[in-house]
Protein backbone atom coordinates (compact mmCIF):
# COMPACT_ATOMS: atom_id res chain seq x y z
CA UNK A 1 0.00 0.00 0.00
CA UNK A 2 1.26 3.46 -0.89
CA UNK A 3 1.55 5.91 1.99
CA UNK A 4 -1.01 8.34 0.51
CA UNK A 5 -3.62 5.57 0.70
CA UNK A 6 -3.19 5.20 4.45
CA UNK A 7 -5.03 6.75 7.41
CA UNK A 8 -3.80 9.21 10.05
CA UNK A 9 -3.83 6.44 12.64
CA UNK A 10 -1.87 4.05 10.40
CA UNK A 11 0.76 6.63 9.47
CA UNK A 12 1.11 7.82 13.08
CA UNK A 13 2.13 4.31 14.03
CA UNK A 14 4.75 4.01 11.26
CA UNK A 15 6.07 7.54 11.87
CA UNK A 16 6.42 7.01 15.60
CA UNK A 17 8.27 3.74 15.04
CA UNK A 18 10.51 5.72 12.65
CA UNK A 19 9.81 3.27 9.84
CA UNK A 20 8.88 6.11 7.51
CA UNK A 21 9.64 9.80 7.23
CA UNK A 22 7.12 12.66 6.72
CA UNK A 23 8.75 13.59 3.40
CA UNK A 24 8.10 10.08 2.10
CA UNK A 25 4.38 10.49 2.80
CA UNK A 26 4.47 13.80 0.93
CA UNK A 27 6.28 12.12 -1.98
CA UNK A 28 3.40 9.68 -2.37
CA UNK A 29 0.71 12.33 -1.84
CA UNK A 30 2.13 14.72 -4.43
CA UNK A 31 2.85 11.88 -6.88
CA UNK A 32 -0.82 10.98 -6.60
CA UNK A 33 -1.88 14.60 -7.06
CA UNK A 34 0.34 14.75 -10.16
CA UNK A 35 -1.24 11.53 -11.43
CA UNK A 36 -4.96 12.20 -10.92
CA UNK A 37 -5.56 15.89 -10.26
CA UNK A 38 -6.16 16.60 -13.96
CA UNK A 39 -9.17 14.29 -13.76
CA UNK A 40 -10.43 15.27 -10.28
CA UNK A 41 -9.71 19.00 -9.76
CA UNK A 42 -10.06 18.58 -6.00
CA UNK A 43 -7.64 21.43 -5.24
CA UNK A 44 -7.72 25.13 -6.01
CA UNK A 45 -4.06 25.44 -5.02
CA UNK A 46 -1.45 23.05 -3.69
CA UNK A 47 1.18 24.15 -1.18
CA UNK A 48 3.93 21.64 -1.95
CA UNK A 49 6.96 23.78 -1.17
CA UNK A 50 5.65 24.84 2.22
CA UNK A 51 4.55 21.27 3.00
CA UNK A 52 8.09 19.93 2.44
CA UNK A 53 9.53 22.69 4.63
CA UNK A 54 7.14 21.75 7.44
CA UNK A 55 7.92 18.06 6.84
CA UNK A 56 11.61 18.75 7.43
CA UNK A 57 10.76 20.36 10.79
CA UNK A 58 8.43 17.45 11.57
CA UNK A 59 11.26 15.03 10.97
CA UNK A 60 13.37 16.78 13.58
CA UNK A 61 10.63 16.60 16.17
CA UNK A 62 10.19 12.90 15.46
CA UNK A 63 13.90 12.25 15.91
CA UNK A 64 13.72 14.14 19.20
CA UNK A 65 10.68 12.02 20.20
CA UNK A 66 8.57 15.17 20.54
CA UNK A 67 5.82 14.18 18.13
CA UNK A 68 2.42 15.81 18.27
CA UNK A 69 -0.91 14.32 17.15
CA UNK A 70 -0.54 15.35 13.50
CA UNK A 71 3.24 15.48 13.11
CA UNK A 72 3.99 14.63 9.48
CA UNK A 73 0.37 14.07 8.42
CA UNK A 74 -0.68 15.72 5.11
CA UNK A 75 -4.15 17.27 5.36
CA UNK A 76 -6.12 19.36 2.84
CA UNK A 77 -8.18 22.38 3.93
CA UNK A 78 -11.31 23.76 2.30
CA UNK A 79 -10.65 27.14 0.72
CA UNK A 80 -13.03 29.02 3.03
CA UNK A 81 -10.69 28.77 6.01
CA UNK A 82 -8.10 31.50 6.40
CA UNK A 83 -4.51 30.33 6.16
CA UNK A 84 -2.02 33.09 6.92
CA UNK A 85 -0.03 34.08 3.84
CA UNK A 86 -1.78 31.47 1.66
CA UNK A 87 -4.40 32.40 -0.95
CA UNK A 88 -7.96 31.87 0.34
CA UNK A 89 -10.60 32.44 -2.36
CA UNK A 90 -13.69 30.75 -0.92
CA UNK A 91 -14.29 29.50 -4.46
CA UNK A 92 -15.18 33.07 -5.46
CA UNK A 93 -13.87 35.63 -7.95
CA UNK A 94 -14.53 38.36 -5.40
CA UNK A 95 -11.70 36.95 -3.24
CA UNK A 96 -9.49 35.93 -6.20
CA UNK A 97 -6.41 37.55 -4.65
CA UNK A 98 -7.14 37.43 -0.92
CA UNK A 99 -4.12 36.50 1.20
CA UNK A 100 -5.30 36.30 4.82
CA UNK A 101 -3.15 38.17 7.33
CA UNK A 102 -4.21 35.74 10.04
CA UNK A 103 -4.82 32.04 10.66
CA UNK A 104 -8.19 30.42 11.40
CA UNK A 105 -8.42 28.73 14.79
CA UNK A 106 -8.95 25.30 13.23
CA UNK A 107 -5.81 25.47 11.07
CA UNK A 108 -3.88 27.11 13.93
CA UNK A 109 -4.78 24.13 16.13
CA UNK A 110 -3.68 21.68 13.44
CA UNK A 111 -0.47 23.70 13.02
CA UNK A 112 0.14 23.39 16.75
CA UNK A 113 -0.02 19.61 16.19
CA UNK A 114 2.45 19.93 13.24
CA UNK A 115 0.13 19.00 10.35
CA UNK A 116 1.31 19.37 6.77
CA UNK A 117 -1.05 21.48 4.63
CA UNK A 118 -1.26 19.85 1.17
CA UNK A 119 -3.36 22.61 -0.37
CA UNK A 120 -6.71 24.39 -0.39
CA UNK A 121 -9.64 22.44 -1.76
CA UNK A 122 -12.30 23.45 -4.25
CA UNK A 123 -15.82 24.33 -3.15
CA UNK A 124 -19.06 25.90 -4.28
CA UNK A 125 -18.65 29.67 -4.11
CA UNK A 126 -19.10 30.81 -0.48
CA UNK A 127 -20.13 27.20 0.31
CA UNK A 128 -23.43 27.77 -1.49
CA UNK A 129 -24.17 24.60 -3.39
CA UNK A 130 -24.26 20.83 -3.32
CA UNK A 131 -22.04 19.85 -6.26
CA UNK A 132 -19.02 22.24 -6.60
CA UNK A 133 -20.61 23.37 -9.88
CA UNK A 134 -20.95 26.82 -8.27
CA UNK A 135 -17.18 27.17 -7.85
CA UNK A 136 -16.07 30.29 -9.72
CA UNK A 137 -13.04 28.33 -10.98
CA UNK A 138 -13.99 24.79 -12.04
CA UNK A 139 -16.06 21.88 -10.75
CA UNK A 140 -14.42 18.96 -8.94
CA UNK A 141 -15.15 15.44 -10.19
CA UNK A 142 -16.30 12.39 -8.27
CA UNK A 143 -13.40 9.88 -8.14
CA UNK A 144 -15.90 6.98 -8.48
CA UNK A 145 -17.23 8.36 -11.77
CA UNK A 146 -15.76 11.56 -13.16
CA UNK A 147 -19.02 12.21 -15.01
CA UNK A 148 -20.67 12.74 -11.64
CA UNK A 149 -20.42 15.54 -9.08
CA UNK A 150 -18.52 14.92 -5.82
CA UNK A 151 -21.27 16.68 -3.88
CA UNK A 152 -20.78 19.96 -2.11
CA UNK A 153 -20.04 22.37 -0.97
CA UNK A 154 -16.95 20.62 0.49
CA UNK A 155 -16.72 18.57 -2.72
CA UNK A 156 -13.01 19.23 -3.24
CA UNK A 157 -12.22 18.00 0.27
CA UNK A 158 -14.31 14.83 -0.16
CA UNK A 159 -12.86 14.09 -3.61
CA UNK A 160 -9.28 14.66 -2.37
CA UNK A 161 -9.81 12.15 0.46
CA UNK A 162 -11.56 9.59 -1.77
CA UNK A 163 -8.84 9.84 -4.45
CA UNK A 164 -6.03 9.57 -1.84
CA UNK A 165 -4.75 13.03 -2.76
CA UNK A 166 -4.38 13.68 0.98
CA UNK A 167 -4.70 11.66 4.19
CA UNK A 168 -7.66 13.63 5.51
CA UNK A 169 -9.35 16.96 4.87
CA UNK A 170 -11.23 19.71 6.64
CA UNK A 171 -14.57 20.97 5.39
CA UNK A 172 -17.46 23.11 6.57
CA UNK A 173 -21.13 22.24 6.81
CA UNK A 174 -24.02 24.74 6.76
CA UNK A 175 -26.78 22.48 5.44
CA UNK A 176 -24.94 19.24 4.70
CA UNK A 177 -21.76 20.47 3.03
CA UNK A 178 -19.52 17.93 4.80
CA UNK A 179 -21.90 14.96 5.06
CA UNK A 180 -23.46 15.04 1.57
CA UNK A 181 -20.10 15.06 -0.32
CA UNK A 182 -18.74 12.45 2.13
CA UNK A 183 -21.72 10.25 1.24
CA UNK A 184 -21.35 10.84 -2.50
CA UNK A 185 -17.59 10.14 -2.45
CA UNK A 186 -17.63 7.19 -0.03
CA UNK A 187 -15.70 8.78 2.86
CA UNK A 188 -16.45 9.64 6.50
CA UNK A 189 -17.73 13.18 7.15
CA UNK A 190 -18.52 14.67 10.56
CA UNK A 191 -20.45 17.85 11.33
CA UNK A 192 -19.89 18.56 15.02
CA UNK A 193 -22.43 20.20 17.33
CA UNK A 194 -22.88 23.92 16.63
CA UNK A 195 -20.35 25.64 18.88
CA UNK A 196 -18.09 22.59 19.31
CA UNK A 197 -15.49 23.85 16.83
CA UNK A 198 -14.41 27.48 16.55
CA UNK A 199 -15.56 29.36 13.44
CA UNK A 200 -12.84 32.02 13.85
CA UNK A 201 -11.25 32.47 10.42
CA UNK A 202 -13.98 30.59 8.57
CA UNK A 203 -15.41 32.81 5.84
CA UNK A 204 -18.97 33.29 7.09
CA UNK A 205 -21.95 32.07 5.07
CA UNK A 206 -24.80 31.55 7.59
CA UNK A 207 -23.39 32.18 11.03
CA UNK A 208 -26.02 30.35 13.09
CA UNK A 209 -25.58 27.18 10.99
CA UNK A 210 -21.92 27.03 9.82
CA UNK A 211 -19.71 24.44 11.48
CA UNK A 212 -16.26 23.06 10.60
CA UNK A 213 -15.51 19.34 10.65
CA UNK A 214 -13.27 16.56 9.31
CA UNK A 215 -13.55 14.40 6.17
CA UNK A 216 -11.56 11.21 6.66
CA UNK A 217 -11.05 7.66 5.44
CA UNK A 218 -12.06 6.14 8.77
CA UNK A 219 -14.14 6.94 11.85
CA UNK A 220 -11.08 6.70 14.12
CA UNK A 221 -9.41 9.47 12.11
CA UNK A 222 -12.55 11.57 12.42
CA UNK A 223 -12.46 11.28 16.22
CA UNK A 224 -8.77 12.14 16.28
CA UNK A 225 -9.19 15.25 14.14
CA UNK A 226 -12.16 16.40 16.23
CA UNK A 227 -9.90 16.17 19.29
CA UNK A 228 -7.45 18.52 17.56
CA UNK A 229 -9.85 21.13 16.16
CA UNK A 230 -12.55 21.16 18.86
CA UNK A 231 -12.84 23.01 22.14
CA UNK A 232 -13.59 26.50 23.38
CA UNK A 233 -12.07 29.48 21.59
CA UNK A 234 -12.36 32.97 23.07
CA UNK A 235 -12.04 34.39 19.52
CA UNK A 236 -15.46 32.96 18.58
CA UNK A 237 -18.33 34.24 20.75
CA UNK A 238 -20.47 31.29 19.60
CA UNK A 239 -17.88 28.76 20.71
CA UNK A 240 -19.22 26.62 23.54
CA UNK A 241 -17.34 26.77 26.84
CA UNK A 242 -16.40 23.53 28.56
CA UNK A 243 -13.79 20.83 28.94
CA UNK A 244 -12.16 19.29 25.89
CA UNK A 245 -13.18 15.65 25.55
CA UNK A 246 -11.12 12.79 24.13
CA UNK A 247 -13.34 11.36 21.41
CA UNK A 248 -10.89 8.57 20.54
CA UNK A 249 -11.76 6.92 23.87
CA UNK A 250 -15.12 5.68 22.58
CA UNK A 251 -13.55 4.07 19.53
CA UNK A 252 -13.95 0.32 19.94
CA UNK A 253 -16.62 0.40 22.66
CA UNK A 254 -19.62 -1.81 21.95
CA UNK A 255 -23.09 -0.48 21.19
CA UNK A 256 -25.15 -3.11 22.99
CA UNK A 257 -28.44 -1.62 24.10
CA UNK A 258 -27.93 1.67 22.25
CA UNK A 259 -31.35 2.92 21.17
CA UNK A 260 -31.33 3.98 17.52
CA UNK A 261 -34.23 6.08 16.29
CA UNK A 262 -35.43 5.54 12.74
CA UNK A 263 -37.56 8.50 11.60
CA UNK A 264 -40.33 7.54 9.18
CA UNK A 265 -40.08 10.96 7.47
CA UNK A 266 -36.65 10.04 6.07
CA UNK A 267 -37.83 7.00 4.14
CA UNK A 268 -40.04 8.74 1.65
CA UNK A 269 -40.92 8.99 -2.03
CA UNK A 270 -37.93 10.30 -3.93
CA UNK A 271 -35.49 8.22 -1.92
CA UNK A 272 -33.47 6.18 -4.41
CA UNK A 273 -34.20 2.44 -4.07
CA UNK A 274 -30.50 1.46 -3.93
CA UNK A 275 -29.94 4.03 -1.17
CA UNK A 276 -32.97 2.77 0.73
CA UNK A 277 -31.83 -0.86 0.46
CA UNK A 278 -28.27 -0.09 1.64
CA UNK A 279 -29.43 2.04 4.56
CA UNK A 280 -31.93 -0.62 5.65
CA UNK A 281 -29.16 -3.24 5.50
CA UNK A 282 -27.04 -0.93 7.63
CA UNK A 283 -29.82 -0.64 10.20
CA UNK A 284 -30.00 -4.45 10.38
CA UNK A 285 -26.24 -4.56 10.86
CA UNK A 286 -26.47 -2.08 13.75
CA UNK A 287 -29.20 -4.24 15.29
CA UNK A 288 -27.00 -7.31 14.93
CA UNK A 289 -24.30 -5.39 16.81
CA UNK A 290 -26.67 -5.03 19.75
CA UNK A 291 -28.39 -1.72 19.04
CA UNK A 292 -32.13 -1.45 19.59
CA UNK A 293 -34.09 0.10 16.71
CA UNK A 294 -36.92 2.43 17.72
CA UNK A 295 -39.41 3.92 15.27
CA UNK A 296 -39.65 7.65 15.79
CA UNK A 297 -41.16 10.68 14.10
CA UNK A 298 -39.62 14.05 13.27
CA UNK A 299 -42.92 15.52 12.10
CA UNK A 300 -41.70 18.86 10.75
CA UNK A 301 -38.99 17.40 8.48
CA UNK A 302 -40.83 18.39 5.29
CA UNK A 303 -40.48 22.07 6.26
CA UNK A 304 -36.73 21.96 6.83
CA UNK A 305 -35.58 22.92 3.33
CA UNK A 306 -37.95 25.92 3.15
CA UNK A 307 -36.92 27.05 6.65
CA UNK A 308 -33.26 26.70 5.78
CA UNK A 309 -33.48 28.70 2.56
CA UNK A 310 -35.00 31.65 4.42
CA UNK A 311 -32.62 31.58 7.40
CA UNK A 312 -29.41 30.74 5.52
CA UNK A 313 -30.01 33.31 2.78
CA UNK A 314 -30.97 36.02 5.29
CA UNK A 315 -27.78 35.47 7.26
CA UNK A 316 -25.78 35.29 4.01
CA UNK A 317 -27.18 38.57 2.70
CA UNK A 318 -25.94 40.23 5.86
CA UNK A 319 -22.57 38.43 6.01
CA UNK A 320 -21.76 39.05 2.36
CA UNK A 321 -22.43 42.78 2.63
CA UNK A 322 -18.74 43.12 3.55
CA UNK A 323 -17.65 42.40 -0.03
CA UNK A 324 -17.77 45.91 -1.37
CA UNK A 325 -14.47 46.35 -3.16
CA UNK A 326 -12.97 48.44 -0.36
CA UNK A 327 -11.10 46.29 2.14
CA UNK A 328 -10.06 43.26 0.11
CA UNK A 329 -10.62 41.32 -3.05
CA UNK A 330 -11.99 42.33 -6.41
CA UNK A 331 -13.02 45.91 -7.25
CA UNK A 332 -14.67 47.29 -10.38
CA UNK A 333 -14.50 51.08 -10.49
CA UNK A 334 -17.70 53.05 -11.02
CA UNK A 335 -18.85 56.60 -11.41
CA UNK A 336 -19.39 57.00 -7.67
CA UNK A 337 -19.17 54.90 -4.49
CA UNK A 338 -22.58 53.23 -4.89
CA UNK A 339 -21.89 52.42 -8.53
CA UNK A 340 -18.54 50.91 -7.49
CA UNK A 341 -20.27 48.68 -4.90
CA UNK A 342 -22.94 47.56 -7.36
CA UNK A 343 -20.51 46.78 -10.18
CA UNK A 344 -17.97 45.09 -7.90
CA UNK A 345 -20.60 42.78 -6.43
CA UNK A 346 -22.34 42.13 -9.75
CA UNK A 347 -19.07 41.02 -11.35
CA UNK A 348 -17.44 39.46 -8.30
CA UNK A 349 -20.25 37.12 -7.23
CA UNK A 350 -21.57 34.17 -9.27
CA UNK A 351 -25.26 33.57 -10.08
CA UNK A 352 -26.12 31.33 -7.09
CA UNK A 353 -24.53 33.71 -4.58
CA UNK A 354 -26.44 36.64 -6.10
CA UNK A 355 -29.67 34.64 -5.97
CA UNK A 356 -29.18 33.88 -2.31
CA UNK A 357 -28.19 37.45 -1.40
CA UNK A 358 -31.33 38.71 -3.11
CA UNK A 359 -33.55 36.09 -1.51
CA UNK A 360 -32.13 36.92 1.93
CA UNK A 361 -32.40 40.66 1.34
CA UNK A 362 -36.04 40.17 0.39
CA UNK A 363 -36.80 37.99 3.44
CA UNK A 364 -35.32 40.66 5.73
CA UNK A 365 -36.80 43.64 3.95
CA UNK A 366 -39.37 45.94 5.47
CA UNK A 367 -42.87 44.46 5.25
CA UNK A 368 -41.69 40.89 4.64
CA UNK A 369 -39.56 40.25 7.74
CA UNK A 370 -42.38 38.74 9.84
CA UNK A 371 -43.85 36.65 7.03
CA UNK A 372 -40.53 35.13 6.04
CA UNK A 373 -37.62 35.53 8.44
CA UNK A 374 -39.53 35.46 11.72
CA UNK A 375 -41.80 32.69 10.45
CA UNK A 376 -38.78 30.57 9.48
CA UNK A 377 -37.21 31.14 12.91
CA UNK A 378 -40.42 29.91 14.52
CA UNK A 379 -40.47 26.78 12.36
CA UNK A 380 -36.83 26.31 13.32
CA UNK A 381 -38.03 26.06 16.93
CA UNK A 382 -40.47 23.33 15.87
CA UNK A 383 -37.71 21.42 14.06
CA UNK A 384 -35.44 21.71 17.08
CA UNK A 385 -38.24 20.50 19.36
CA UNK A 386 -38.75 17.48 17.06
CA UNK A 387 -35.19 16.39 17.85
CA UNK A 388 -35.49 17.14 21.57
CA UNK A 389 -38.60 14.96 21.79
CA UNK A 390 -37.02 12.16 19.77
CA UNK A 391 -33.91 12.18 21.95
CA UNK A 392 -36.04 11.55 25.03
CA UNK A 393 -36.63 8.08 23.59
CA UNK A 394 -33.42 7.29 21.70
CA UNK A 395 -29.63 7.76 21.97
CA UNK A 396 -28.94 8.43 18.30
CA UNK A 397 -30.92 8.67 15.06
CA UNK A 398 -30.08 6.86 11.80
CA UNK A 399 -31.08 8.07 8.32
CA UNK A 400 -29.76 8.12 4.76
CA UNK A 401 -27.29 11.02 4.31
CA UNK A 402 -28.53 11.94 0.84
CA UNK A 403 -31.62 10.86 -1.12
CA UNK A 404 -29.56 9.67 -4.11
CA UNK A 405 -26.02 8.71 -5.07
CA UNK A 406 -23.87 11.27 -6.93
CA UNK A 407 -25.78 12.94 -9.77
CA UNK A 408 -24.37 13.90 -13.16
CA UNK A 409 -22.96 17.32 -14.02
CA UNK A 410 -25.64 19.73 -15.18
CA UNK A 411 -28.47 17.55 -13.92
CA UNK A 412 -29.64 20.05 -11.29
CA UNK A 413 -28.05 23.33 -12.38
CA UNK A 414 -31.03 24.79 -14.25
CA UNK A 415 -33.45 24.52 -11.32
CA UNK A 416 -32.01 25.89 -8.05
CA UNK A 417 -34.79 24.25 -6.03
CA UNK A 418 -33.86 20.74 -7.26
CA UNK A 419 -30.30 21.34 -6.09
CA UNK A 420 -31.55 22.53 -2.68
CA UNK A 421 -33.57 19.34 -2.27
CA UNK A 422 -30.43 17.17 -2.47
CA UNK A 423 -29.72 18.38 1.10
CA UNK A 424 -33.16 17.34 2.34
CA UNK A 425 -31.80 14.84 4.91
CA UNK A 426 -28.92 16.92 6.22
CA UNK A 427 -30.47 20.37 6.67
CA UNK A 428 -32.56 19.74 9.82
CA UNK A 429 -29.40 18.80 11.68
CA UNK A 430 -27.89 22.26 11.14
CA UNK A 431 -31.14 24.00 12.07
CA UNK A 432 -31.26 22.02 15.35
CA UNK A 433 -27.48 22.44 15.88
CA UNK A 434 -26.96 18.75 16.67
CA UNK A 435 -23.94 16.68 15.49
CA UNK A 436 -24.10 14.10 12.68
CA UNK A 437 -21.72 11.82 10.84
CA UNK A 438 -21.92 10.18 7.41
CA UNK A 439 -20.24 6.81 7.11
CA UNK A 440 -20.01 4.61 3.96
CA UNK A 441 -22.73 1.93 3.99
CA UNK A 442 -22.81 0.46 0.51
CA UNK A 443 -22.81 0.97 -3.25
CA UNK A 444 -25.51 1.38 -5.85
CA UNK A 445 -25.97 -0.92 -8.85
CA UNK A 446 -23.86 1.64 -10.77
CA UNK A 447 -21.10 1.22 -8.18
CA UNK A 448 -21.55 4.66 -6.60
CA UNK A 449 -21.07 5.11 -2.83
CA UNK A 450 -23.95 5.46 -0.36
CA UNK A 451 -23.75 7.04 3.11
CA UNK A 452 -25.47 6.32 6.41
CA UNK A 453 -26.13 9.38 8.59
CA UNK A 454 -26.02 9.03 12.37
CA UNK A 455 -27.35 12.02 14.32
CA UNK A 456 -26.58 12.64 18.01
CA UNK A 457 -27.68 14.83 20.89
CA UNK A 458 -26.06 18.22 21.44
CA UNK A 459 -22.37 17.69 22.32
CA UNK A 460 -22.74 13.91 22.17
CA UNK A 461 -20.38 13.27 19.27
CA UNK A 462 -19.13 10.34 21.37
CA UNK A 463 -22.27 8.26 20.73
CA UNK A 464 -22.36 8.76 16.96
CA UNK A 465 -18.62 8.12 16.67
CA UNK A 466 -18.97 4.96 18.74
CA UNK A 467 -21.84 3.64 16.60
CA UNK A 468 -20.18 4.72 13.34
CA UNK A 469 -16.96 2.94 14.31
CA UNK A 470 -18.75 -0.26 15.34
CA UNK A 471 -20.64 -0.23 12.04
CA UNK A 472 -17.56 0.56 9.96
CA UNK A 473 -15.53 -2.23 11.54
CA UNK A 474 -18.26 -4.78 10.84
CA UNK A 475 -18.34 -3.85 7.12
CA UNK A 476 -15.78 -3.43 4.34
CA UNK A 477 -17.31 -0.47 2.48
CA UNK A 478 -14.66 1.93 3.78
CA UNK A 479 -11.87 -0.22 2.36
CA UNK A 480 -12.98 0.08 -1.25
CA UNK A 481 -11.05 2.47 -3.46
CA UNK A 482 -12.11 4.05 -6.74
CA UNK A 483 -10.16 3.05 -9.86
CA UNK A 484 -8.81 6.12 -11.59
Amino acid at each position, binding site marked *: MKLNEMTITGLRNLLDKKEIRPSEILDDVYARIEEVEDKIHAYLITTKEQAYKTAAEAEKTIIENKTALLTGIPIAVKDNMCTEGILTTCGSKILYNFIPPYESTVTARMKAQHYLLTGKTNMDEFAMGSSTENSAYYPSKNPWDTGCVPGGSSGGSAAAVAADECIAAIGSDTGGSIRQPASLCGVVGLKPTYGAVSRYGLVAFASSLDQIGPLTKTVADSALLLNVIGGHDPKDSTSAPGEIKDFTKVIGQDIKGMRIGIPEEYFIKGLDSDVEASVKDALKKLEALGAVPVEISLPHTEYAVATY*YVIATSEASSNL*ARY*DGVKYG*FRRDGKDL*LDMYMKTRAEGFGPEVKRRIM*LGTFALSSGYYDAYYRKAQ*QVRTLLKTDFEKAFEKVDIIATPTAPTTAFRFGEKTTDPLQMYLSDIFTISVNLAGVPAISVPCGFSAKRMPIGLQLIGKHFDEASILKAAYAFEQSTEWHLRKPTL
Partner: protein
Amino acid sequence: MHIAGLSRLSILDKEAETLRGQLNSILDYVEQLGKLDTANIEPTSHVLPLNNVMREDLVKDSLPIEEALRNAPDGTEKFYRVPKIIE
Protein backbone atom coordinates in the same frame (compact mmCIF):
# COMPACT_ATOMS: atom_id res chain seq x y z
CA MET B 1 -34.87 45.53 -9.45
CA HIS B 2 -35.74 47.04 -6.08
CA ILE B 3 -34.31 43.98 -4.29
CA ALA B 4 -31.21 44.06 -6.49
CA GLY B 5 -30.71 47.66 -5.43
CA LEU B 6 -31.11 46.82 -1.76
CA SER B 7 -28.65 43.97 -2.32
CA ARG B 8 -26.18 46.41 -3.93
CA LEU B 9 -26.08 44.35 -7.11
CA SER B 10 -26.31 45.91 -10.54
CA ILE B 11 -28.46 43.61 -12.64
CA LEU B 12 -29.17 43.73 -16.38
CA ASP B 13 -32.83 43.69 -17.48
CA LYS B 14 -32.33 40.30 -19.11
CA GLU B 15 -30.80 38.88 -15.91
CA ALA B 16 -33.60 40.39 -13.83
CA GLU B 17 -36.18 38.39 -15.76
CA THR B 18 -34.48 35.03 -15.12
CA LEU B 19 -33.88 35.91 -11.47
CA ARG B 20 -37.48 36.99 -10.98
CA GLY B 21 -38.69 33.59 -12.18
CA GLN B 22 -36.19 31.67 -10.05
CA LEU B 23 -36.80 33.72 -6.92
CA ASN B 24 -40.56 33.46 -7.33
CA SER B 25 -40.42 29.67 -7.61
CA ILE B 26 -38.25 29.47 -4.48
CA LEU B 27 -40.64 31.80 -2.64
CA ASP B 28 -43.60 29.68 -3.79
CA TYR B 29 -41.86 26.71 -2.24
CA VAL B 30 -41.21 28.67 0.97
CA GLU B 31 -44.93 29.56 1.16
CA GLN B 32 -45.58 26.09 2.60
CA LEU B 33 -44.33 27.40 5.96
CA GLY B 34 -47.61 29.35 6.08
CA LYS B 35 -49.46 26.07 6.61
CA LEU B 36 -47.99 25.79 10.10
CA ASP B 37 -49.59 27.57 13.01
CA THR B 38 -46.75 29.29 14.82
CA ALA B 39 -48.79 31.82 16.79
CA ASN B 40 -47.35 30.87 20.18
CA ILE B 41 -43.94 29.64 19.06
CA GLU B 42 -40.81 31.55 20.10
CA PRO B 43 -38.40 32.15 17.23
CA THR B 44 -34.96 30.44 17.36
CA SER B 45 -32.17 32.68 16.16
CA HIS B 46 -29.47 30.56 17.70
CA VAL B 47 -29.25 27.06 19.18
CA LEU B 48 -26.73 27.74 21.93
CA PRO B 49 -27.82 29.18 25.27
CA LEU B 50 -25.15 31.88 25.01
CA ASN B 51 -25.93 35.58 25.34
CA ASN B 52 -23.74 38.66 25.32
CA VAL B 53 -20.42 36.88 25.58
CA MET B 54 -18.05 39.46 27.03
CA ARG B 55 -14.37 39.63 27.67
CA GLU B 56 -12.48 42.01 29.89
CA ASP B 57 -12.06 45.42 28.33
CA LEU B 58 -8.33 45.20 27.81
CA VAL B 59 -6.21 46.33 24.91
CA LYS B 60 -4.93 43.26 23.09
CA ASP B 61 -2.66 42.74 20.11
CA SER B 62 -4.24 43.60 16.79
CA LEU B 63 -3.14 43.54 13.17
CA PRO B 64 -0.60 46.19 12.22
CA ILE B 65 -2.09 48.76 9.83
CA GLU B 66 0.11 47.69 6.89
CA GLU B 67 -1.04 44.09 7.30
CA ALA B 68 -4.68 45.08 7.51
CA LEU B 69 -4.36 47.23 4.39
CA ARG B 70 -2.35 44.77 2.33
CA ASN B 71 -5.42 43.22 0.67
CA ALA B 72 -7.10 46.53 -0.14
CA PRO B 73 -7.63 47.20 -3.87
CA ASP B 74 -6.73 50.84 -3.26
CA GLY B 75 -5.21 52.50 -0.24
CA THR B 76 -2.75 55.07 0.92
CA GLU B 77 -0.48 54.83 3.95
CA LYS B 78 -3.04 54.44 6.72
CA PHE B 79 -6.30 54.55 4.79
CA TYR B 80 -8.54 52.68 2.37
CA ARG B 81 -9.26 54.80 -0.70
CA VAL B 82 -12.80 54.91 -2.13
CA PRO B 83 -14.34 57.00 -4.93
CA LYS B 84 -15.19 60.58 -4.00
CA ILE B 85 -18.37 60.76 -1.90
CA ILE B 86 -18.79 64.50 -1.27
CA GLU B 87 -19.01 66.84 -4.26
